[in-house]
Each structure stands twice: as structure tokens, then as C-alpha cells.
């Protein structure tokens, strides 16, 4: 069964550094999402992406964040200058056209020190 994959599984970075989190959505899916989950809290929406542009973004998704689909398979989330409060699990999700079902990847644990 096709799955969303994410790399790396764990990223440790120093405050102020840039990080790029990578996702490979399910191949026939056209809608892509990033969510984050601070330890012990609920999953929060960050951004949705369709047809090479952002469809919707949350208040969390400020100018420090950006997303890109650099090729036909990858979907990335970049944080330009990480803060301590960016430490969280980041989940990528994808969805095919005409379906409500979003499928989540296993997540990247980001630790900012």
C-alpha cells in the first residue's frame, strides 16, 4: 500500500539555523499539507499546497516558513531561522483529487537547541 514518507526521522539543529524537512507524498496525490505536533499536544495545521502554490496557511506559518515542490515527487518545508519553540513533530500529508482522506507520513522530530 502506498505511503507518505518523510526524511529525516529526527533532526537536531541549533537556534537560528535553517532546516529543510522532506516529504514524498503518495504518487497520484495532488494536494499536500504540513502539520506539526508539539509534544503531548494536538496536531496543528501549518499549510496546504496545490498546483504549485499555497492554498491556505495558518497563523503559525509566518515568514520564517516556506514550502516547495522542487520536482515531481518531493515536497519540502523550510524553516529559515529556527527558534526553540519550533521543536515539534512535523507531519506531511497528502490527498488525491476528489477525496477527503488525508494520509499522514511518520513525521520528522525537530529538536532546536
Amino acid at each position, binding site marked *: 500500500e502506498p505511503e*507518505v514518507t518523510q526524511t529525516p526521522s529526527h533532526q537536531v539543529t541549533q537556534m537560528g539555523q535553517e532546516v529543510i524537512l522532506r516529504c514524498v507524498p503518495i504518487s497520484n496525490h495532488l*494536494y499536500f*499539507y504540513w*502539520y506539526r505536533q508539539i509534544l503531548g*499536544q*494536538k*496536531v*496543528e*495545521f501549518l499549510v*496546504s499546497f*496545490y498546483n504549485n502554490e499555497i*492554498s*491556505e496557511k*495558518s497563523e503559525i506559518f509566518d515568514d520564517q516558513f516556506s514550502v516547495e515542490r522542487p520536482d515531481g515527487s518531493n515536497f519540502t518545508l523550510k524553516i529559515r531561522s529556527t527558534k526553540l519553540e519550533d521543536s515539534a513533530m512535523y*507531519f506531511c*500529508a497528502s*490527498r488525491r483529487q*476528489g*477525496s*477527503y*482522506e*488525508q*494520509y*499522514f*507520513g*511518520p*513525521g520528522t522530530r525537530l529538536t532546536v537547541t
Partner: protein
Amino acid sequence: QQQVKQSPQSLIVQKGGIPIINCAYENTAFDYFPWYQQFPGKGPALLIAIRPDVSEKKEGRFTISFNKSAKQFSLHIMDSQPGDSATYFCAASVSSASKIIFGSGTRLSIRP
């Protein structure tokens, strides 16, 4: 109005019991209500989902009950097993293109 309120925060049930997790919403524009199961260190996995035009949906041992007038929905797990121990999130979205809004989660523990 964009929130989904979930209770209880944690739940302990004996094997074979029927845990029930409840959720409530305000936004009547929500038209899709999924439940996700999450094991430690893993991503949320879609368990079962319902649209507001039906009052109940069953998939295996999992049942969603939906009360549109009360703006509430719940998850029942029949014949619960220790392997069902996980965190369960209810959620909602407006249209298929929209973000999913998650409840706060219920940590379920099934005792052998």
C-alpha cells in the same frame, strides 16, 4: 468556532470493554469528520470517517455515531484489545480541499 472539543483526555478500559470518545463542534460548515489513531512516535493514521448525512458508520470494531442537531460525534470501540491502546484524535474539515482541524486527543489504555 474552528475548534473541535474532545473528551475525555485519557481513558482506561478493561479488555473487551467499549471505550467511548466524544467530540463536539460549533462550525456547521464542517462536512467531514475523521478519526485518527496515533501510536507513540508515529504519524496519525486514518481510522474511520463520517459525513454529516449519516448518523452512524461501522468499520470492523470501530463505530462513529453522529448527531448533527447536537453537533456532536463519538467513537465507540467494540471488544477493545490491548493493541488498541493509542491516542485517538477526532477531527473535522470544511470541504475536501480544506485543512483538517484536530481535537485535543484521548489517550486510551486497554488493560489485559
